[in-house]
């Protein structure tokens, strides 16, 4: 099931190759660093002594907790090298300044004001490297009344509006709370926009020679990511209501998440598959093969007005068909008949999907420290001229200290030992 995204990845470099990124990021920004690393940037993750706190987030390899066994850390830190550095020591700050002299981008997620207080703010760093781009990705940005508020993924999805749009119809789950979708997506959303800001700054630097400072806010990024909710409010003053498995909307729309015979569900997205006589006929013929078309082959459904007027009845008949068919047959059978349906898949069903295999999505990443390779998620997009690739698994704590401090900054092994003993690395 393994493939590479290009027939010969060695021959082509990723689109961001040649750029060096220094990443000082926790859960807020580690995904942004991964996005850049997998696209070819040379990302050096600078962790505090003892390792970044994200190393202690589960799940862990074989459920045995250890800072080098966090699957969460593995996932978010591919294609990076890792060093440790205590920025609160004089020697640590000096080493960091030396690293920024040759870097293109610094990505940091410290609380606002932390780096400037150490003499490592944008102005301090840019004085030695005017082309440097510094991106601070923080919960609320560097200014404003909520600047120092404490957050987490859940808190951002509350304030950002994701929860106000997600939940249940009352007849599915009575008194349900607004629901915060899982997966850590507040950080993903923030990281996507930080990536865009960094790219914009790179274009500007290419044109002007000047770096700049980027003040990115997870809250603003989330507040921007609820599709039509804001536009609906601005247009009509209405606030959307939560519905099970479909768009929150001001109205009580038709249900589209239908349970299947084998305990699954299929989403039969309305807007892309509005029924007309021809489409309804195609559906009814399929249902009839299983003896479940009921009256849908009736001639009266060859009239568009009847089809539209009977939408709820059609949905009921369809729901009965679904209740008697397995999930996999339903969504693929629908797609083969040009209905853009999607099963609610879990990772159990996603593994081995032949379409994903065709696209080289499942990539094997070697973990030499364990003598094993594991299957990682591949690329959302195939860059045909400059391939995406995971160049290495997440770094172990301080794995590249020698390579960077001795190899690049020309410290001796003796000096490296002193730095370790004195609490700098």
């Amino acid at each position, binding site marked *: 099931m393994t493939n590479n995204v290009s027939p010969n990845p060695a021959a082509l470099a990723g689109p961001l190759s040649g750029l060096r990124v220094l990443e000082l990021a926790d859960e807020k920004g580690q995904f942004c660093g991964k996005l850049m690393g997998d696209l070819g940037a040379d990302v050096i993750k600078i962790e505090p002594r003892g390792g970044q706190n994200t190393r202690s987030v589960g799940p862990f390899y074989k459920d045995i907790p250890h800072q080098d066994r966090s*699957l969460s850390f593995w996932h978010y830190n591919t294609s990076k090298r890792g060093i440790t550095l205590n920025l609160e020591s004089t020697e640590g700050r000096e080493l960091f300044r030396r690293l920024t002299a040759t870097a293109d981008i610094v990505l940091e997620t410290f609380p606002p004001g932390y780096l400037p207080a150490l003499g490592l703010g944008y102005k301090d760093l840019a004085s030695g490297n005017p082309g440097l781009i510094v991106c601070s990705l923080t919960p609320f940005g560097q200014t404003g009344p909520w600047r120092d508020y404490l957050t987490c993924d859940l808190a951002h999805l509350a304030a950002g509006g994701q929860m106000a749009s997600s939940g249940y119809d009352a007849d599915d789950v009575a008194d349900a709370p607004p629901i915060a979708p899982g*997966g850590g*997506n507040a950080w993903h959303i923030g990281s996507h926009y930080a990536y865009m800001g960094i790219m914009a700054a790179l274009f*500007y630097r290419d044109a002007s020679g000047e770096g700049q400072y980027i003040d990115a806010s997870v809250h603003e990024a989330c507040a921007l990511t609820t599709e039509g909710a804001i536009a609906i409010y601005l247009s009509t003053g209405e606030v959307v209501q939560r519905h099970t498995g479909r768009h929150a909307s001001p109205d009580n729309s038709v249900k589209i998440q239908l349970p299947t015979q084998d305990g699954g569900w299929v989403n039969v997205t309305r807007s892309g598959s509005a029924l007309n006589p021809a489409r309804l006929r195609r559906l009814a013929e399929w249902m009839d093969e299983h003896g479940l078309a009921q009256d849908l082959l009736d001639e009266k459904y060859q009239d568009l007005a009847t089809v539209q007027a009977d939408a709820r009845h059609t949905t009921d008949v369809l729901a009965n068909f679904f209740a008697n068919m397995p999930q996999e047959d339903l969504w693929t059978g629908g797609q083969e008949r040009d209905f853009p349906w999607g099963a609610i898949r879990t990772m159990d069903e996603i593994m081995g999907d032949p*379409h994903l295999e065709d696209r080289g999505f499942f990539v094997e990443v070697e973990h030499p420290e364990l003598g094993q390779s594991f299957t990682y998620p591949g690329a959302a997009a195939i860059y045909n001229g*400059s391939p995406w690739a995971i160049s290495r698994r997440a770094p172990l704590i301080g794995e590249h200290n020698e390579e960077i401090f001795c190899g690049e900054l020309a410290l001796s092994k003796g000096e490296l030992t002193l730095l370790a003993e004195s609490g700098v690395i």
Partner: protein
Amino acid sequence: MSLPRPLEGIRVVDFTWVRAGPWAARWLGTFGAEVIKVEWPENLDILRMNRFTVPTGVEPGPNSTGQFADTNANKRGITLNVRTPKGLEVIKKLIAVSDVVIENFSSRIMQRFGLGYDVLKQIKPDIVYISMAGFGQTGRHHNYGTMGPAAQALSGLTFLSGLPGVPPAGWGWSYLDDTGGMYGAMCALTALRHRNATGKGQHVDLSQMITGITLTGSAFLDKTVNGRQARREGYPPGNRTTWPGAPVTNNYRGPTVAPHNGYRTKGGGYNDWCVIACFSNQEWKNLVKLMGSPSWADDSRFDTLNGRLEHQEEIDRGIESWTKTLEKYELADKCQADGVRAMPVQSSEDRVEHDPQLRDRGMYTEMDHPMLGRWKFQNAPFKLSGSPPEMHRPPPMIGQHNREVMEELLGLSHHELEDGYKDGTFWPEEMPMYPYVEEALK
């Protein structure tokens, strides 16, 4: 002298429609690219018809929806029938002087138009071509179609959202249209920079559905590395990190802590909710003190994380009896002042009208729109000190910029333009023209 914008001098041919594609191109425009949206009035972008976003008192029509407006700001727009030989010739002229072509049609529709990448690169060898089909342009199911919710379902994202023992709640909007749009923009920016660095263009083949799989956090590795079953007791755990009574497994949101939930607040309205999370024993102590050290909370069973996880039902009931006495913003402020993570659940109205942070940071910019009047547009969620992103142009009315693009940019004569309106190249022959379209021809 004004500073150059990041994408100054970059021209984008934008074939996108609905949400994901237009949202991608919108950001290229926000960074200063000249984005030209290509439309055809007989196949209207469905956001031009979104019935929920026509303001009261505004005449309904393709130029009157708030949702289209925000999604398509910072673009110019032309109408062109690329299915005719003459239309195809015109679009090729435009592509020849452009840098990026971006589209989110179903797979291989562009080939059917005669505008596949092989053709595009003949017209413009270093063109950056971004396709955003649901399943991508390659792979055996490339022809499968998706809208946001179905893509979310297939990607595993939907399953991550909801309460245990009932159907998934999913995402109450097309997250993969918003985020698919982000990836479209990220792909365009990345491939364009690669072109600037190497002189080489390329086709980037993005899949909306696959984007979703990459956004499920560590759920993927928990399957491939640990073999964890996705369907398991107590999963997904709603707004909690783990469900009381079920075996502790990670829910891919962060560390396993309690309390960690949504709570009703004073007023009892539909969105009168807040969330509170305690990530340490100290944060829990801070919360207990803030609640006035009620007797129910003074219980040694709650002193440890394990105890709090086990007794979440009891703790959540107790916390909610307190949160119901406070208005949600007041509650969040009090919590934050005492070192407790808490935020209000904010509706769209809350964000636009009541969120002091978004107001302070200037999240919404007003511009004049020909149909909607003075209208709010959402800004970029970051500030660039040297080359700030800008909302600089309201969305195009359909066909609004035909004359300036055809005559000024592509050098068609006014006579050729008029002919194109008569022969169905720039406007459907049978369809009445809007007054502004006729006006522009004079």
